């Protein structure tokens, strides 16, 4: 079973995001593999450990993303593909999916795993676009994955319950939280990851031209929240009473 994992490098979820001049300031940010992609990577490695085959991690970005590909190696990925684009921030999901579709042409993958969304843009579109371009089945929000030689059975966190989907192969599956607990890379893995070659493909060489259809007009910080107030009261019960009154009479939400 050859598995492809789409990984995106994003700011650490504990990072404070500073916006100025319409841009997100990247100085001092610690970069990580997007948490859902890390879960996808872990799942791919577990499938490989069970059925054999290879795990390839692919990422689009500037040279910095090689750091995440090395983390993927340290966790257990066999190959890494870096689609290099120095202004990758301007690429939309369609451009990224098109680049991946082109880069994997002629390569044999039965399963593609990715996170349900990047923890930066919160879009979650790339796997769906890739699947639609390729005509492959896509199952989103997986909480349990079983693969045999013919099909994938995927338990999905759906609205109102758990749905079970069956798909032909090749299949694209997006990982939800709770699918697994990603491993920490071993020291041996980290050492070995440093020497492993990374296949670099220049975005410009894929012959896609300008494929982005979304224009980023600018970032802004969240609006400041209106000043609140503390609820006074002689004891907890009095505070509870005053809070209930305020919710009903002042903001009329109860």
């Amino acid at each position, binding site marked *: 079973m050859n598995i492809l994992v789409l990984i995106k490098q994003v700011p650490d979820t504990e990072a*404070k995001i500073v916006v100025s001049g319409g841009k997100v300031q990247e100085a001092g940010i610690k970069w990580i593999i997007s948490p859902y992609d890390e879960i996808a990577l872990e799942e791919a490695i577990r499938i490989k450990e069970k059925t054999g085959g290879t795990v390839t991690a692919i990422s689009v970005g500037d040279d910095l993303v090689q750091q995440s590909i090395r983390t993927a190696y340290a966790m257990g990925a066999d190959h890494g593909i870096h689609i290099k684009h120095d202004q990758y921030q301007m690429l939309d999901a369609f451009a990224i999916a098109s680049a991946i579709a082109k880069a994997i042409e002629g390569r044999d993958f039965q399963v593609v795993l990715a996170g349900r969304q990047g923890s930066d843009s*919160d879009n979650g579109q790339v796997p769906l*676009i890739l699947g639609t371009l390729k005509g492959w089945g896509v199952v989103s929000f997986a909480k349990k994955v079983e693969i045999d030689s013919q099909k994938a059975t995927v338990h999905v966190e759906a609205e109102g319950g758990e749905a079970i989907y069956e798909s*032909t192969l090749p299949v694209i599956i997006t990982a939800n939280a709770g699918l697994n607990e990603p491993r920490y890379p071993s020291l041996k893995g980290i050492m070995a990851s440093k020497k492993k070659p990374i296949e670099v493909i220049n975005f410009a060489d894929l012959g896609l031209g300008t494929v982005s259809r979304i224009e980023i007009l600018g970032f802004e910080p*969240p609006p400041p929240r209106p000043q*609140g107030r503390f609820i006074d009261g002689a004891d907890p*019960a009095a505070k509870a009473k005053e809070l209930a009154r305020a919710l009903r009479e002042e903001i009329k939400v109860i």
Partner: protein
Amino acid sequence: MAKILAIGEVANGIPKKATREITSVGRSLGEVHTLVLGTQAEAAASEVARHGAEVIYAVESSDYNGEAWSQMAAQIVREGGYEIVLIPHSWAGRDVSARLATLLDSAVISDAVEIHNEGGRIKIKKPVYSGKAFVWLKSTAAIQVVTVRPNSQKIEENPGAGKLEKRQLDLSKVKARQISFIPQKSTRVSLTEADIVVSAGRGIKGPENLYLIENLADVLGAGMGATRAVVDAGWCDHTLQVGQTGVTVSPTLYIAVGISGAIQHLAGMGSSKYIVAINKDPDAPIFKVATYGVVDDLFQVVPPLTEEFKQMLGK
């Protein structure tokens, strides 16, 4: 006038709230037609028409199928010459929108909390980093596909003709399909649709005390959430996690109980209209975003608060 297709869901003949929302948005942007998919879809037509739909395409579908739904929608968009497609940024909406946009040679500007029409081009504001920042986006594609965050838009009463057109899904060629469904045991309203959300933080001390939060949520008819710390400790299911690697919510009222306010949690609920924080630590960061703060022991505050609400609501 712009031709707009809104795509929404129906369950047992009742349109989802988000279906009403996007139809209302569509009506404010031009002539809106609504495609409804789900169970007893036809029965929802008159309800959807109340919000401005001139035409309603009803498609009976017992369970969600992204491939079949997107193919059906693409066919309707092409035949009808729609220029703008509006879809709720819901569980199904986010899945179907990216597929549909690809079939239409377009792209999705997603999760809009603000929508502006600038001479036929839609400009949206969307939260990124789960709400730690916002970005303004514009689509340059011929057909503009937009997903809209549930609960972010007003529902307007503005009746349209509601001419009914029935369509049938074709499931014969799909690669992936649902084979079974296990409904959730809880009957509580879903987190993303809830008007009021009550969430528990580590201050709750253990799973044995979660009933306090459940009781409060149930009296208010609220959704129930939790912080990552509570989920990581195994005290409740991860589907309840509010925050950057969980669910993002923007209810009218968010009640944070025993929550300190870690940055990734604030990201997931910071766009709530009103926030109540109950925490015994007056320096907890959650108070910086709170409309009303109660500095006290939650175990002493939550039971009388639940009682107050019970009396107010006659329960």
